[in-house]
């Protein structure tokens, strides 16, 4: 099939970017979206220009490195799928596709479609862990954990940290990402010990990074490639409230 691609090109965070149009022919429907981008880049390089920079690594939907907003949707039109797992059969001959970077103050553009998501790392560093040193652990079965709680903690922990929640939120809020980590650790006895301190410091860091507020719209969860639940946000809200009323 033949496609018209409108791609955001931007040299760096300081330079103004713009949409640039490309035409790509002979796109196979079995290609993944990123393979289509590879082919486009080969064409651009052979034409003497610089290829489009985009982040990608595992290409099996788990590392969270790929990003891109495709026709206004983070990771494109297919629900529960990362860009690398999106295949061209989701499009048809003659389609126009708009490809843009994740846009948020907290995710400055590095180049073209690449953005800097280190804000997420800093949020985890502010408290997204259990303070246990190597070697200090009791036996794995020392504390039984209800299967349901372990399963729910796992569901929250499947977050791949890609940032689609921020990209899809009308307010560029990072609440879903932050709450998933807080809820995961709060559901486990090992993590619960530090829950109140954790929620305070992680929220403070989240605010520091310039993400927006939560309007409880739910776009984050609907666009999340792993379907992280909004209930995590409610849990974080409750924890923060409790920790504000009774800090210890």
């Amino acid at each position, binding site marked *: 099939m033949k496609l018209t691609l*409108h791609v*955001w090109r931007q040299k760096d965070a300081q330079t103004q970017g713009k*949409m640039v149009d490309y035409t790509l022919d002979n796109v196979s429907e079995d290609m993944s979206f990123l393979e289509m981008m590879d082919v486009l880049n080969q064409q651009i390089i052979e034409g003497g220009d610089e290829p489009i920079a985009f982040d990608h690594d595992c290409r099996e939907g788990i590392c969270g490195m790929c990003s891109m*907003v495709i*026709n*206004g*949707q*983070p990771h494109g039109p297919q*629900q529960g799928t990362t860009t690398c797992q999106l295949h061209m059969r989701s499009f048809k001959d003659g389609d126009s596709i*708009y490809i*843009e970077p994740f*846009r*948020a*103050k*907290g995710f400055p553009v590095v180049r073209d479609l690449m953005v800097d998501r280190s804000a997420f790392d800093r949020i985890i560093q502010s408290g997204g862990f259990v303070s246990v040193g190597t070697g200090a652990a009791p036996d794995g079965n020392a504390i039984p954990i209800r299967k349901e709680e372990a399963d729910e903690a796992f569901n929250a922990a499947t977050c791949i940290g890609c940032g689609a929640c921020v990209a*899809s*939120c*009308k*307010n*560029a*809020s990072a609440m879903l990402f932050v709450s998933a980590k807080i809820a995961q650790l709060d559901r486990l006895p090992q993590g619960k010990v530090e829950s109140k301190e954790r929620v305070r410091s992680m*929220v*403070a860091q*989240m*605010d520091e990074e*310039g*993400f*927006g*507020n*939560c*309007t*409880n*719209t*739910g*776009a984050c*969860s*609907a*666009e999340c490639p792993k379907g992280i639940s*909004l*209930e995590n*946000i*409610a*849990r*974080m*809200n*409750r*924890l*923060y*409230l409790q920790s*504000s009323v009774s800090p210890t």
Partner: protein
Amino acid sequence: MAKLSSLSRKYIMAFSGLFLILFLTQHMTINLLSVVDSLRLNVFGAEESNLFNQAAYFMGNNPVVQFALQPVLIAGFMIHMVMAFVLQAKNAAARPDGYQYGNKARAYNWASMNMLITGGVVIGFLGLHFYDFWIPEITAKYVTGKAHIGDGPATEAILADVNRFYPELVHRMKYPWRVAIYCGSFVLLGLHLNHGFQSSFQTTGVSQGKYVEGIKKASTAFAVIVPLMFIVVALVHFFIS
């Protein structure tokens, strides 16, 4: 004062919103009394029905309501409104460059995206509503000492009349344009409430597990019933009283 966290701002929105919801329920209840009065007077042929007048008189003259609850209500409303603008400004700053194609993310419901619009309409409506009832009432009670009904002259006697509220209400509701504005505003209020009600439970962390679905249903029910009742009040007085 320490800077408020994003979550604290949302709590303020949620709690002030819940407070306004309580007020709205109370307001609706008293208004419905006027419908009862109207039906008794005009349909069932009662000689006299002063349920609404009595309630309105109580609200207007009880010192606790007037000097404790009323200022709290005004403050709650102002906080809710000012915080809405603060949040909007912060949210806009969180994405300085928008999407060229537009944001087409799923799960956007119109109400949640446009709380500022629906809220703005409610503010505009309140302007009219204040002009109709609250300002004349406050002026009469605390400035001139004289009240009037309809287009009649203002006198001290009317102000002293316990039963002056119902006729004034009926008078205001005889204009089609006003009834239309009232009804339209209530529809948008419904949209505002539909998102706001459930949202406040999400923001305060109540909305979890088995409660989620119930809260959503309650929210929709509230957002339909309350504005509908207000519309009923306006229409009853327009058509029947």
